[in-house]
Structure formats: C-alpha cells, structure tokens
C-alpha cells in the first residue's frame, strides 16, 4: 500500500468520527480568528472604555468588558497569539528532538539507548515547574525561552513513543532485508522506520499540545511568560479573579476558551488514535465480563440419568456461529473426552457450559446439570453450581492461580465459600485437599506463592482448587498440554484416581488422542464447530466412522501403526463465518462427493454399531468398507 493512499484512508477514517471533526473545525476557527486578530478584533486590546466597566455581554462588547473597560473579545483574540505561538514553540521542540533521539535510541539500541532512556526518566522525575521558574528568572520573563524549555521538558513523552515504535519495527524482516541490501542506517530510519511510527507520534503530539496549553495557561495566570497589561488567556483568568465579586461573568470567556481548546486537542487525539490504529480493527478496551445473552427457544427434556448434558448447544459471536448444535452427556463416574484441533470449538463449548463467555456471545440450546436447565436458570442457581456442582481446571497452571496470594489463601477462600469453614478447620481442609492431589508436603506448599511452584505442582494445586467444593463434574481444559511429558502421565493418573475415589464425572478437552486413550470412556470428536463423531473410545478407535477421525488417528504418533509413516491432514480448518453449507470437512476429505457439499449433514447412528456410536458422514458405508479392506489387507 502506498503511503499516499494510506494517508487518504486515515483521513477517511477520521472524517467518520463526528466529535473529532467538530473538534478539528473548532480548532481551525480559533487559529484563523487569532491569526487575524489585528483585523477582526473590534477594539484594541488595551483600549479602555470607562463608560462600560465590567459591562457583561452587550451589543458593543459581545463578551463584555473587564474592570478597566477593555473589550474581552479583543483581548481573547490578541492574547490567543501568545498562547498559540507558545504551544507551537514547545511542541515543535519536543517533537523534533523527541523523534530524532527516540529513533536513534530505539533503532540502534545498545548502551546509547540505555543512557538516553535513563536520562529521560531523570527528566520525568523532576518537577518541571522549578526549571521553568528558573528560566523565567534568568531571562527576564521571556515568553519564548519559557516555552522552549517547556518543550525540552516534554521531550520524554515523544521520545518514549518513538523509541518504542522504532524498537518494535527494528526486528521486522523488511528492515533486516534493507540492511542486507546495504541501505545506510539513516536512510533506513527515514524511509522505513518513520512511516511506521508516525501514527502514535501525531496522536501524542495532539495530547502534548493539550497539556502544554494547560501548563502555559497556568504560567500566564502567574504573570510568567507574559507582561501585563498585554493580554493572555491565562492572565485574563487572573484578571477575572480580582473582579470575582463584581462581575462573575468575566470567568467564563477566558476559562472556557482554554478548556474548549484543550478538549479539542484531546478529541482530535482520540480521533487520530482510532483512525491510525491499523493493528486491530477493534481497539476497544477489554470489556468487563457480563451476562451472556441466552437466546430463548424450545427447551427439550434432559437426557435420562445424565449428570451433565448439553443439547443443541450453539454459540455465536456477533452473528457468526462458532459452535453449532453440540450435544453430549456425562454419567456419574464417567470420563468424556472432547477432542479436536484448535479452532474446532471445543474450548468455547466448555466456556458456554461454565458460563464464562463474555457479553458478546449468544448461546442457544440447553445445558442440563442434575436435571436442571442452567442457561435459563436464575443467577443464584448458576452461582450455586459453580465449584460445588461443576468445577474447572484450565490449560496453563502457571497462570491459573492468583500470583498475589498464597496457596493457603486462595484455596482457603474456596473452602470457606463452599463449606463455611474458618480458622483451624479451614486450614485442615486445605491441607487435606493438597494431600488428596498427591502433593508431598501440604503444609509447606500451602505457604507458597504460585511463582514458587513448579508446573506440575501448580496443576495439582489447581486441581485441589477445583475439588474444594466437592464437585460432581470436573471440566478439564487441556490439563496436561502445558506440562512436561513426564508430568503429564502423573496428572492423568491423578485425575483417574480422583474420579474413582469420588465418583465424579470428568469432561476432558484435548487435542491429544493419547490423553483420550489414557483416560476417557467415551469421546466426542469436534471439527469446525460441529460434533462429527461420538462413541465409546474402544469402538471409535477401532472403527472410526468419520473420515476426520480416521485422519486424526493416522496423524497421531500414539495411535498410529508402528512402522508406517505419519499422515498429516492436508489443508486447514475452515474459519467460523466461512463454513461450507454441507460437510465442514469435505474440502480435506478423500471420500468427498458432490452430495457432501450440497446440504447440511446430520449426525446419524453408525450402521450395525454397538452403543451410541454416531457419525456426521453420508459416505459412512464407504468409510467403514475402506477400513475393513485395510484390516483384511
């Protein structure tokens, strides 16, 4: 993309924001009016009209007069020149020096960078006002000197932005490529680095202008950098203060013009920030989690005897479906594995069941726990389910514990919440839980903070946290993925032992068929937001009823046959929003025919299969026949 069309794009983006456009227009009016002050001002700023002292707004004096009968509008227009010229001086100094020094520091790095960064920290740590006062004292109140020094004091703002952006760009490939080609460092900085950092720089320049106006106004209020009776915006506030008793109106024009001009700079900065932010379309801050929208629809009855069940469970973000019509059930003491590649929707499914999706998610279908439908249940019911009905362990144990609290503290909080235990009883329960998950020295572990635990220990503590409420079902999202291979087996053994001891059901989410083979009784295979196959682990591994399951098994080093090369699946998972009408796997499937892509494929029982083996494949006969052929061969 050429930089010209890029700039037009930024302009178009900017013009879409009404508030930013109004702010820019206001600033333009101020600048033009102040520039033409000598021409358009109705009076001289020093002209005194004793017949109209402190008059308030009148036909002759639209913004009123001050205690010497001087016209406020004229003084604002002329005083604006000191203000705007001063801002320009300070901002130009800060921006020019900040960019040059920032580029050098960020692009070259090394000890020079360290020295320059420390120096800016030093400048930021000193109260700038003292340096400014010193400057005015030494230069006999020279307005330009003060603003130039203010610019120098503001260099760190621009320096930090430029340095950060330049350092980030430095590592990118096109910079290394330029260097290999032999383009000089200065040429690289001017041609490649600067165009990539100008966005944040102009945004911060606008903010800097706003802040500078506030500081300069304060100095002028103190009669620094301006010599009364010459007008200045800040000085007019000071003059208004002396007439506060007689004519409060005088406060309004001078203060308001400063406030509105500062606000205009800030709104322009906001508009520029949004318009130049190319990194992500939505730069909105992280939204606080809030209630997920559950779309009402006919509620079916829960599957008989199931502890936890999902039926017709779909999740959409902003109208894009990411999980469609997922159904499965967990019996007491049973382990159900949900397996699929990343992007298959398995984690979103778990989050929907746990009610931990953010507000932008729309959930349809049903989730049943002990016969109670949870998605439409009152908040109190859902709350009561968390931890004591359904518990959860997450993927990466190192970030799953609050780093600020000891194990005793956070585990104790859950014990108190679920069992109302305090003091010694609470502590005893914590130690028992830690012992239950196989931690050798519960007392010592309880006193530690999360950063003092190894990955395996942290995952055991996470499991203890999940067990604190004696849950009936445990949802474990990739519980071993982040761990060392040697630890993985121990954690799976622990989960199996806990299931057998407590009789709880487990839903284990994984991309690893080895984990399924090790732990699960039944397995649900997900692909591109849909369940493509489900059944007992033995049946499904022996006679996969879906080409995707077959491909997964063939690609898995544990499940594949010894001596045969591993087969990777060509192509990639289609993204939500671009799912095909028919079978989601058709594009990567060796069995696919035209019929596969015409209409949605239902999940149907596998012919002649035992139990509840089901597959979402209309070529099921060909798939099964092919499997039989291979076995015979």
């Amino acid at each position, binding site marked *: 993309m050429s930089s010209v069309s890029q700039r037009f794009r930024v302009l178009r983006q900017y013009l879409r924001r009404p508030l930013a456009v109004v702010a820019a227009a206001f600033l333009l009016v101020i600048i033009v009016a102040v520039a033409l002050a000598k021409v358009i001002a109705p009076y001289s700023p020093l002209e005194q009209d004793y017949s109209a002292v402190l008059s308030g707004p009148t036909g002759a004096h639209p913004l009123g007069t001050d205690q010497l009968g001087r016209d406020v509008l004229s003084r604002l227009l002329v005083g604006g020149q000191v203000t705007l010229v001063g801002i320009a001086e300070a901002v130009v100094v800060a921006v020019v020096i900040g960019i040059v020094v920032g580029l050098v520091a960020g692009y070259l790095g090394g000890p020079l960078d360290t020295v320059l960064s420390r120096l800016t920290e030093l400048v930021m740590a000193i*109260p700038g006002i003292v340096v400014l006062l010193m400057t005015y004292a030494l230069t006999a109140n020279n307005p330009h000197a003060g603003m130039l020094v203010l610019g120098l004091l503001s260099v760190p703002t621009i320096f930090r932005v430029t340095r950060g952006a330049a350092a980030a760009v430095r590592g990118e490939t096109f910079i290394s490529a330029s260097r290999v080609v032999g383009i000089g460092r200065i040429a690289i900085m001017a041609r490649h680095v600067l165009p990539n950092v100008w966005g944040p720089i102009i945004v911060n320049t606008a903010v800097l202008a706003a802040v500078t106006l506030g500081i300069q106004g304060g100095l002028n209020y103190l009669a620094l950098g301006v010599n009364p009776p010459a007008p200045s915006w800040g000085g007019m506030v000071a003059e208004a203060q002396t007439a*506060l008793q007689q004519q409060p109106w005088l406060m309004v024009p001078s203060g308001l013009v400063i*406030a509105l001009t500062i606000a205009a700079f800030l709104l322009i900065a906001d508009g520029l920030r949004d318009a130049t932010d190319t990194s992500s379309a939505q730069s909105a801050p992280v939204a606080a989690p*809030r209630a997920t929208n559950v779309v009402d629809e006919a509620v079916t009855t829960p599957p008989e005897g199931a502890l936890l069940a999902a039926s017709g469970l779909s999740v959409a973000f902003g109208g894009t479906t990411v999980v469609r019509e997922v159904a499965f059930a967990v019996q007491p003491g049973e382990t159900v594995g949900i397996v699929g590649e990343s992007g298959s929707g398995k984690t979103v499914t778990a989050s929907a069941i746990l009610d931990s999706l953010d507000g932008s998610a729309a959930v349809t279908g049903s989730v049943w726990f002990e016969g109670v439908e949870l998605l439409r249940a009152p908040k109190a019911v859902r709350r009561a389910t968390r931890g004591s009905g359904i518990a959860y362990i997450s993927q990466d144990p190192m970030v799953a514990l609050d780093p*600020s*609290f000891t194990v005793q503290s956070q585990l104790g909080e859950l014990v108190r919440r679920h069992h109302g235990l305090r003091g010694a009883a609470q502590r005893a329960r914590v130690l028992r839980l830690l012992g239950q998950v196989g931690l050798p020295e519960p007392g010592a572990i309880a006193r530690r903070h999360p950063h003092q635990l190894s990955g395996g220990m942290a995952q055991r503590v996470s499991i203890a946290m999940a067990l604190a409420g004696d849950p009936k079902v445990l949802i474990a999202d990739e519980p071993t993925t982040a761990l060392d291979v040697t630890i993985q087996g121990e954690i799976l053994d622990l989960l199996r032992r806990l299931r057998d001891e407590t009789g709880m059901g487990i839903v284990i989410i994984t991309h690893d068929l080895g984990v399924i083979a090790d732990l699960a009784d039944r397995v649900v295979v997900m692909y591109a937001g849909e369940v493509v196959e489900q059944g007992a682990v033995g049946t499904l591994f022996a006679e996969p009823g879906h080409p995707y399951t077959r491909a997964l098994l063939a690609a898995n080093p544990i499940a594949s046959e010894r001596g045969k090369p591993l087969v990777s699946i060509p192509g990639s998972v289609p993204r939500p929003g671009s799912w095909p009408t028919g079978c989601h796997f058709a594009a990567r499937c060796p069995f696919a025919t035209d019929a596969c892509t015409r209409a949605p494929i239902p999940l149907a029982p596998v012919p002649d299969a035992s139990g509840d083996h089901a597959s979402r494949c209309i070529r099921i006969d060909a798939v099964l026949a092919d499997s039989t052929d291979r076995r015979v061969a």
Partner: protein
Amino acid sequence: MIKTLGLRLLASLVLLIAVPTVTFWLQAVTPGNVAQQILGIGASKEAVAQLNHQLGLDRPVWQRYLDWLGGFFHGDLGHSYVTGDSVANTLGGRVGVSLSLIIGALVVFSIVGVLLGILSTSGNRVWGRVIDVVSTAGIAIPNFWLGVLLIGVFAVQLNLLPATGYVPPEQDAGAWIASLVLPVVALAFAGITGVAKQTRDQMLVSLASPYARSLRANGASEASLIFRHALRNASGPIITVLGLIFVGALSGSVVVENIFVLPGLGSQAVLSTTQRDLPVIQGIAVYFTIIVVVVNVVIDVVNTILNPKARTA
C-alpha cells in the same frame, strides 16, 4: 529485596544531586547579569559590579559550583539575594503548608480515582462513561480556572469556605481544614483521571485473566474477584501511577498556592522568580526533589511489600 531497594536508594541520591546541579549550571550558562536584573536597567556600572562582588558572582563558575555543593552537603543552601536571609530559613516555615496541600491532594485523588475505577469496572456502563467524561475534563479544565471557579461558587456565592489564606493547624484545626478544602480539590482534580483509568485498565486485565476465570468457575464470588483478587493485583501498577501523578501535582501546587494565597513553597517560588532571587528558587528545587525522592522510596517499599515475587526473591 534489600539489594534492589538499596539500588533504588542510590538512584534517588543521584537524583538529589543531579537536579540542583542541572539548575545550577543552567543558571551559570544563561547569559544575563543577575546584579543588573536585580538593580534594574538604570543602575550604575559600579553598583552592578559591587553587587556582583557582594553576591560572589565574579568568581569562576566551577568554584561557585564547588562552594555551593560543599554547602549543600552541610545543609547550607546559600542566602537570598533579596533579603540576605538564609534559604533554609526562608523556606523552612513554608514546607508544612505545601505538604498539607500536596498530601491532601494525594489522598483525594487516590481515593476518588480508585473508587471511580472500581465503579467503572464492576460492569455498569454508566460509570464507564462518567470516567471518560471526567478524564477529558480532568485535563481540559486547568487547575487555575477550576480554583477560581471554586472560589466564585463556594466562597463568594455560597460563603461556605474561605476564598484565600491559610490557618496553621496548631492555631485552629477546623479552620486549617476549611482553608485547605478548595485548594486540595483544585489540585487533586487533574490527578483523579489518571488514577481511575489505571485502576479500571488494570482491574479489567486481572478480571480477564485465567486465574480469575478459574476462581470464578470454582465458586469464588464476584465481590471477591473484584475487591480481593483484581484490586490486589492492580494495586502495584496503581501505586506506580500515583507516584507519577504526584510529581505533576507538585508542579500544580505552585499555581494552586498562588490562586488561594497559601504561604507555601510555591508562592515563594513565584515571588522569587519575579525578584530574580536564584538561590531561593534553587533551594525550592532541592526541597521539591527531596519530596519526590521520599515519595519514590515509599512507593518502592510499598510495591516490594505488595509483590510476592519481589518479596520472596
């Protein structure tokens, strides 16, 4: 832990010497004749030369710097050009006034900022909007205008609080507080924004983190997630921002003291500026730097206590 704190203390010492040194050399290399400026343009050459000699300004710069530095280490900050009084005497009685104002403002913007931040975090979108408006207003309404507006409303119109002046606490504690209310509000207003934003951002990061998700799914209450876990994890970054805002408030106090005619360091600073009384300004630079250093050390200590990794490392 003690080693990192020691390093920080050393850095603070560097700052303590660096700031007066910079201001000293700034004054030394700036063209302009101090004696001439004090005596006015009409003064005779002899009078200027005599005053220069009297103030010791006719000696080489480096010698003056070494003298000044030697005095600095003995707590001697020199003498006022104008009154001849020692700088320490001139400023000593004013420190308490400035500290009352600045610490008052620190308390106000910390408490109000954190509360606003929490309110905007706890799901309610209205409070989110309030923060956005306050944050623009915090910068757009400068302290000198806000201060005068406050006087106009609360002193002139409503007659609730004194417009200007300061009453020492040992004289009348109630009047002391009354004399500080408006100045503290005027000074604190700009700081509220930064604290509220930092609180909100850090708490949202914490609430979206995997540990918050795990705790919630395993039964921790919403109140505990917000007030115990999110607030605790946000506290370090919030305190760091408090330190930065405090340095800004120190600058703001110079303006605010002048609006409300408080006899603190800031009023003296402006008076000395108009009188070209450089040793006094230099002395104020030292006092301000000491305040910054003390605040930085306090923040480092608090952060070390709050951060379990630093504490147990």
